[in-house]
């Protein structure tokens, strides 16, 4: 998010709140936060901030929300949060995840207009509010896939009730700036942003002892300046078993195939089920895929399974998660990494560097993680959480800032986390 858009968002939120409070029937404020410390057993950074030096930046967040009710049908909400900046590794930033006006024409309909969160996963809408779940950190092989799940636009929900069951259909459409971070072995950290246009449907069934959600979403990614993006990178055969992928227009070879945008289709399935009294199982799976056959297509599958057991104030859990890139995305990343343009060829160092940088920007993933943790409900509004996670890096992971010129692969990372979350 740029400074300009952040400021304009906050000004708009301020005006919305000022106008809202002036004619509000009632208003209420609330605050939430997490103070967390996490450390790993590796010197390189994992999940942006985590290394063996320890950090409070991975999970710490502070937010406040004002809800204004004009009458039973009309209301407005603004939420502001302070968290590590998405555009700078060293800074903290102010963000406005929610700033919307809502209208309920009747019991079954809810319409929202403004800035809001995508109804992607079971905890997508309350991802920053650690008090609302027992995980020390929501599984990053799942929830970490989208760098930002906020958008400005329209959202409509229709619900049906049958006994104690409630079925709802959520539909939305809108757009947002998408802050992105890439780490390349040759250039270090690069922050940039594209534009995203989002639309989708989510079907949610809430029962007294279970919640089920299935969703289909379409994301369209465009460059900020609306220039084309690389889609197909031709292999340039230089003879004698040598060659490279043309990933830069300045390299010799046929033209790079280009596209005006990238489309990603996302299908989600989630369940939060009480298996027996005090025993709960939560599992979600997501398949995201670009249509067509371009080299730069996105293709991943990820999921997790977690089992919770409530014992008075303690809720220990164990979870397993998996994230894997597939199709052309995985193949291109592997192929780029395997290029070793011989030193006797002209500009070989530059060619090899270009292959590494391109491989890092593809952002392929191959990770598995086990986690054991517990939450301790101190009060009804605060929780202390601890977790030990062991991640196995397979062929490669874009979550790892690999030191040196060799990508980290076939390694494990142990991560310890302690968090305190609260709401008021």
């Amino acid at each position, binding site marked *: 998010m740029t400074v300009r858009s952040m400021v304009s968002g906050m000004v708009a939120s301020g005006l919305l709140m000022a106008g809202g409070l002036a004619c509000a029937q*009632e208003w*209420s404020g*609330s605050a*939430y936060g997490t103070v967390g410390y996490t450390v790993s057993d590796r010197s390189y950074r994992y999940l942006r901030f985590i290394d063996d030096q320890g950090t409070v930046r991975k999970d710490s967040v502070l937010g406040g*929300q004002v*809800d204004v*009710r004009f*009458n*039973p*049908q009309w*209301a407005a*909400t603004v*939420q502001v949060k302070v968290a590590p900046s998405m555009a700078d590794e060293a800074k903290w930033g102010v963000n406005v995840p*929610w700033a*919307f006006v*809502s209208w*309920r024409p*009747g*019991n079954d309909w*809810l319409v*929202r207009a403004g800035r*809001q*969160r995508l109804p992607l996963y079971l905890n997508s*809408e*309350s991802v920053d*509010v650690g*008090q*609302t779940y027992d995980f020390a950190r929501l599984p990053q092989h799942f929830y970490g896939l989208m760098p930002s799940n906020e958008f400005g636009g329209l959202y409509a929900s229709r*619900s049906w*009730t049958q006994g104690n069951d*409630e079925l709802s259909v959520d539909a939305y459409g809108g757009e947002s700036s998408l802050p992105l971070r890439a780490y390349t072995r040759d250039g270090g950290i690069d922050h940039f942003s594209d534009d995203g246009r989002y639309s989708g449907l989510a079907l949610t069934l809430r029962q007294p002892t279970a919640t089920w959600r299935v969703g289909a979403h379409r994301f369209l990614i465009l460059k900020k300046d609306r220039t084309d993006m690389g889609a197909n990178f031709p292999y340039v055969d230089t003879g004698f078993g040598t060659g490279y992928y043309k990933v830069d227009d300045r390299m010799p070879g046929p033209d790079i195939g280009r596209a005006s945008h990238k489309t990603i289709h996302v299908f989600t399935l989630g369940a939060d089920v009480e298996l027996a009294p005090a025993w709960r199982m939560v599992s979600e799976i997501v398949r995201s895929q670009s249509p067509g056959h371009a080299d730069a297509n996105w293709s991943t599958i990820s999921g997790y399974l977690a089992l919770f057991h409530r014992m008075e104030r303690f809720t220990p859990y164990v979870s397993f998660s998996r994230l894997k890139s597939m199709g052309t995305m995985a193949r291109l990343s592997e192929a780029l990494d395997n290029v070793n343009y011989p030193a006797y060829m002209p500009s070989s160092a530059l060619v090899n560097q270009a292959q590494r940088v391109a491989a890092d920007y593809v952002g392929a993933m191959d990770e598995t993680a086990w986690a054991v943790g517990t939450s301790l*409900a101190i009060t*009804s*509004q605060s929780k202390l959480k601890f977790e030990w996670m062991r991640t196995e890096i397979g062929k490669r992971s874009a979550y790892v800032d690999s030191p040196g010129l060799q990508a980290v692969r076939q390694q494990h990372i142990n991560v310890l986390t302690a968090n305190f979350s609260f*709401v008021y």
Partner: protein
Amino acid sequence: MTRRSLWCSLIFLLMQLAPWCAAWAGAVVVVGHANVHKIDASTVQRIYTGKVIEVDGVPVQPVNLKPGQVLRQRFLNDHLQQTEDAYTGYWTVRRYIGKGAPPRELGTVAEVLQFVQSTPGAVAYLDEADVPPSANVVYKK
């Protein structure tokens, strides 16, 4: 029997009688402004969980007593089958997923009565003993 043992016996007797005394407290009834129609148990639950905002075309405005008050705990237990912690947790999630804020909270029964009488669509709960003769009782278990 010493004076001390007499006191101990008396306290023990009172502790045994406590559940009976609680049972003697009046039932928790749901009252509404004059324009609110009769409702059923399911509708009471849905009003206080934010799922219903109108009943028979009348927009409703529920009010709660502040957390910790005995009458509120009895209402949550008797009519919503929830504990205070579970109810607070429910509204924490609902608020932060953009589905609205919990009902307005008032500090005393007198404030509740005042609100119900003066606000069209108001819905509240009272101990049966506190219900004035003119009140519109919309649900009684």
